[in-house]
């Protein structure tokens, strides 16, 4: 089992959700984060005072999948999120030791989907 974390542009969320859905991935956890990457943060001004280096809004997706779904998920994420411009984000993959469905107390690969 793997856990996939993706940081994407907020306005690609709908596309990413669609692509994941078509790849058969329905279970996701989403949160709002701020990111600082290669993308230059937009400059803000408040009463003439410059605030640069600001963090940009990003969406963080957390998707736990069984091994065979890892590559399809990555593909779907890239398909939905890629615009080719700086700021498109990253995908991180980790090992997942255990997964438990709270409702049924099932464990392991069965609990993921």
């Amino acid at each position, binding site marked *: 089992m793997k856990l996939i974390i993706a940081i994407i542009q907020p*306005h690609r969320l709908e596309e990413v959700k669609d692509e994941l859905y078509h790849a058969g991935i329905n279970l996701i956890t989403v949160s709002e984060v701020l990111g600082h990457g290669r993308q230059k943060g937009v400059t803000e001004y408040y009463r003439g005072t410059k605030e640069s280096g600001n963090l940009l809004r990003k969406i963080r997706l957390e998707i736990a999948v069984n091994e065979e779904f890892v590559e399809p998920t990555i593909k779907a994420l890239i398909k939905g999120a890629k615009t080719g411009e700086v700021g498109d984000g990253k995908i991180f993959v980790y090992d997942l030791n255990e997964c438990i469905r709270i409702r049924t107390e099932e464990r392991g690969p069965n609990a993921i989907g």
Partner: protein
Amino acid sequence: MKRFKFLLLGIFTLLSQLVFSQDVTSKINSGDTAWMLISTALVMFMTAPALALFYGGLVKRKNVLNILMQCFITLAVVSLLWVICGYTLSFSPKSLIPGFIGNFDFAFLKNVGLGASDTYATTIPHLLFVIYQGMFAVITPALIIGAFAERMKFSSFLIFVIVWCIFVYFPVAHWIWSTDGWLFKLGVVDFAGGIVVHINAGIASLVAAIMIGKRKYLKPTPPHNLTFTMFGAAMLWFGWFGFNAGSALGANGLAANAFVVTNTAAAAAVVIWFILDLFFVKKPTMLGSATGAIAGLAAITPAAGFVDVGASIVIGAASSLICYFMVVFVKNKIGYDDALDAFGVHGIGGIFGSIIVGVFASPLIQSAYSGLLFGNPKQLFIQVFGSVVVIVYSLVLTIIIFKVIDIFMGLRVSEKEEAMGLDITQHNERGYTVIE
């Protein structure tokens, strides 16, 4: 910037030499004046904060300041425009083009004094009539913001507001509300702006929505803060008492009638939208109730000084019904993106109200005005005629204005700017901090 300052200094020198008419005390009724002072403040309150809250809550978080800024800058710019040339073009009883547009007698408010006007609102200071009408000029273009929300370039927006006021609002106000106006002379009635404000802005909204095109994103996003929208709707309702009851231009029985029918029409409209929501989406919605209120208020606006309480219930209810179908079904069928339903609510509500006053106008409210139901079918035809004229005029002129702006400076922000949001790209600001 420098040029602007010179201009201002010029204006000032000019004005300092003017002689204000000084018959201050004569004829002025302090009760009427008190009511019109606060009514003016109430109409100002409608544009900001009320409309800003109403519209601002409906957009995405990343575009909220853009909406607020559009409302605020409209208040500032049109306020200036109004004292410079708006009032005189709209209300001067002498005209540049007879019946069509006023002359410059009152430019920079010269010849407008602290005393009462001979022509309009003869029991309150002329200056007060000026500023009361000015707040109507402010809110009308502000209503259009709802149509092109979340995608219009701020610079183009600003030019649009100025040009549209000059070529559309001021003439139309002149036609209908000036004693010199050709539609006024024809007998078209519009108590508080059903034609001048709501039809006018509503049609411009339709044009704007179509010409600027749809917002780019896969699916609609829900309003970012419906509580703001509700607070805004309630504040609009509150301000609307100044808008409609203030249009009696005095503190009298007519104002009281306008107040009551305004409230009742809004109430009936809320109830009908509520019922339609129950029927079509199974649950009554807050956004629906707020929208319904505006639909009822827009429709009663032209009629508030002519119809009785019974009629107001019918008008509010029917307007809500019609607007519901426009917003929920027709818009999606046709497929233009009137983002916040400026046309669907203000335009449609305004058209309905402006026509229906020709049916319900009752001589028991103002003895000089009767509608179809009181034996005067002519009024209905006049109202239809007046409405159609303004619809066509606003339609054609707004198309031209948008086209010209599009050619010279473009209407839309880039796709990337739209994705990033207008707050950061148009104003270098964000509405809210995420992390502190």
